[in-house]
C-alpha cells in the first residue's frame, strides 16, 4: 500500500515492561499475556492517517535486558520516534529511565521525538509509580507522556499516533531534513522523484514445497 511518509520508531525500556505487547496490541490489536523474551530485534508495521495523509509506521521492538544493551543501542540510529516504556507497577523500571534517556539522546539524531509511556495502567491496585511522577519526568526532559495498557488497549493507539503527529508537525516546521534517511523518515514511493531499485520483497519459503 502506498504512503506519503514512512516513520521509523524504536521501542525501548527495561525488560518485562511490555514493549513487545504494546507493539502487538498496536499492529495486531491483540494481547498475549505470556510473551517470549525479546533477544534480538522485532519489526512491526502499520498504516495510520494524519491530516488526510497515509503514514506508514515501521516499528523496531528491542531487547530490554541489560546484557543486550550494546545491540539495542545500535538501533537508535535512524529512528524518528522512540517509545520509552516503564512499568507503573515496578519502580525500578521508572528509576532506570534516566539511563535509557541518556542512551537515547547520545545515540540518536537530536530531533528524535520521544514518548514516555507508563504501561500496565490496568494494574491500578499494584501501582508503584504515580501518574504525576511520570508527568513530572516527562516535563523535566521535554518528552510527551501517556499511561497505557497493552492488555486493555487503553491509550495504545494514541501513544503511537500522537508520536507520529509530533514528527509530522516537525516536518511541517522544517525541523526534519526528510531527504536524509538517517532521520528515520522516508518519503513514500509515489512521492519520491527517484525510486531506488530495491529487490521486491518476498517472504520465505518453508522447508517443504520449495524445491524442484
Amino acid at each position: 500500500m502506498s504512503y506519503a511518509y514512512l516513520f521509523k520508531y524504536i521501542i525501548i525500556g527495561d525488560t518485562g515492561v511490555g514493549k513487545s505487547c504494546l507493539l502487538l496490541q498496536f499492529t495486531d490489536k491483540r494481547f498475549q499475556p505470556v510473551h517470549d523474551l525479546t533477544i534480538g530485534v522485532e519489526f512491526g508495521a502499520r498504516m495510520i492517517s494524519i491530516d488526510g495523509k497515509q503514514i506508514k509506521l515501521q516499528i523496531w521492538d528491542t531487547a530490554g535486558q541489560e546484557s543486550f544493551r550494546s545491540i539495542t543501542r545500535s538501533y537508535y540510529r535512524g529512528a524518528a520516534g522512540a517509545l520509552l516504556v516503564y512499568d507503573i507497577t515496578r519502580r525500578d523500571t521508572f528509576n532506570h529511565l534516566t539511563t535509557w534517556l541518556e542512551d537515547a539522546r547520545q545515540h540518536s539524531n537530536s530531533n528524535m521525538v520521544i514518548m514516555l509511556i507508563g504501561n500496565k495502567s490496568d494494574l491500578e491496585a499494584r501501582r508503584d509509580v504515580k501518574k504525576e511522577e511520570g508527568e513530572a519526568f516527562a516535563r523535566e526532559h521535554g518528552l510527551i507522556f501517556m499511561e497505557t495498557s497493552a492488555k486493555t488497549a487503553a491509550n495504545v493507539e494514541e501513544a503511537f499516533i500522537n508520536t507520529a503527529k509530533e514528527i509530522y508537525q516537525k516536518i511541517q516546521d522544517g525541523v526534519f531534513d526528510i531527504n536524509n534517511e538517517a532521520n528515520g523518515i522516508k518519503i513514500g514511493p509515489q512521492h519520491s522523484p527517484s525510486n531506488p531499485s530495491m529487490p521486491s520483497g518476498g517472504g520465505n519459503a518453508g522447508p517443504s514445497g520449495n524445491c524442484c
Partner: protein
Amino acid sequence: MLARFKDAAMSAIAKRSVAEKMLADTQEESARNNFISGLASGPPKPEKFPYGRPYFLSLDKEEVQSAIDFGTRPIIIPRKVYDMPLVSGYAECLNGGKSSCNEDNSYACEMHIKPKSSQNGKTLTRSKTVMQPMQEIAKMAPCIEAVYFGMFDGHAGYQTSLIVSRQLHSILQDLLSECVDRLVAMRASAGKETLETEPITLGFSRVTDDDLIVGALEEAFQLMDQRLKKDGEKFNVRGGCTAIVALFVNGKLYVANAGDSRAVLLHGTTVKQVSTDFTPEKEKQRIHLKGFTNPELLHNEFCSLEFQRRVAKSDIGSRMLCRVPGTTGWKFKTIDEDDTKFPLVIGHGKNARIMGTIGVSRGLGDHDLYIYESDISIKPFLSCVPEVKVIDLREEKYDQTDVLIMATDGLWDVVTNARAAEIVRNELQKSKELHENGQNGPQKIKDLEKTKYIIAAQRLVMEARGTFTGQGWKKSSGENASFDDISTFVIPLKKYQDIWRNKCAFENSIEAALRS
C-alpha cells in the same frame, strides 16, 4: 564479495590488451552492471525466486524489507527457536551498502533418508514404531537420519545463493537415498567380526561409508552447479556463490566447503578450523595447471607459469626463477615475450584474483562470468567440487559449550578463530553458570536453554558488524568492522551426539528383542 570484483577491475594494472579493456570503463556503476553479464543480451529474464531470507527466520514480506536498512544493519535471529535443528544458533546482518540486499543465504533441516524404492513405503523411524510388533519393524526399509546446515555467500547478485540455499539439500538427500542400504549395512556391521553384507572393494582398498557420503556431497555440489547453468537459460541467474555444508550423519560430521566461508570446531579448550579457505592464492597451483594444460582458455592473454616476481618487458632475455604447473620445485628460465603476459593469478592473500577478477577459487554458479567486455570465461578456473573433511564424533566427550561455528567471510575477515571461540565460550559459560547456581526458576532456565546458541551467534555478528561511528562501522576495539554481509551458525555438538546415541540404543534394543 562484490567489492572484490570491482576492486579487481579497477586495480588490475597491466599494459596488455585485456588489462586495458578491464580498465577502460572507469565508471564504477557501469562496470558493476556489465562486468558479470559479459556477453549476455536479449530481453530480461524472470527471477527464479523473489528475494527472501532463510525460512527459519520466519520473516514476512514486510519484515524482509524492514531488514534492508543499510544505516542500521539490524542483526536478525530466528524467532521460533525450535525451528532450528539441534536448537542451533543463527544470526545474520546485511552489508553496509555495497549491494542492494543481503547476498548471503542459509538453510538448515533434518533429513530422513530412505531408499529411493521405498520413498512412500514404511520406514523404520522412532516415533512410528512404538506400538508395532518387532517382526513388522524388521521388515521395514532402513532409514538414516541426518542434520544439514548450508551457508552460501553470493556475489554479483542474490539469486545464486538464494537458489542454492533452497535446493542443494534436496539434491543431496536424493543422492544419499541411493546409497542408504549400503550405509545402513555398514553401520550395522561396524565393530562386528563377520560382515552381514559383502564389502564393496576397489582394488585392494575397501570403500567405506565415509567414501559414500563424501561422494554424495561432492556430486551434490556438481549437480547443483549444472542445474544453475540450466537455470540460467530460463531465469535471471547472475553471479555465483560460495557453499559450505555441515552434514551430521552416522555419528560423524562432514564439512564440505567450496569457497571462503569457514567452519571452526570448539572442543574443550581447543579451537580447530575444519575447512580450508579457498582463495586464488591457496589454489594457485590447481589454477595454473588448468591454464597450462588447456592453453586455449588463456586466449593468449594470460601466463600460466609462476615466477618469483611479476615479469616486466625489461626482463626479456634475463633468467628468473620459475615454477612449471604440476611440479613443486623452482627452476631458472630465460624470459621471453610470452612470460610477460598477465599472470593467471595475481595478488596475495585476500587480494589475490583469478584473471584479475574473482577473489574466490571455488563456488557454484558464475557461468556468466567473463572478463569485462571480452569472451574470456573465468568459470573453467573455478572449481565447484568441495573439499570434505570428516570428523568422528562418536567417541568424543562433548559438553554443552562444544560447538561448530560456521560463518561467511563477513565474520572471518575481521574476527579471528580464537576471538570467535572466546566470544562463544563466554556466552555459553554464562548460561552454564546460571544453570548451575540453582537460583533461577525453571522458566528462566528453559528460556536460556532455548536461546543460548542464538545469543552466541548474535554476539559473533555484533562483534563483526560493530557500531556505526562518524568514521564508519567500527569494532568495539576501534578497528574497522566488516562492511560485508555476515552470517553465522553456532551448532551444539553434544545435542547431535545425544540424538545419535539414543538412536543407536533404540536400534540395539530392537535387535536384541528380535533375537530373543
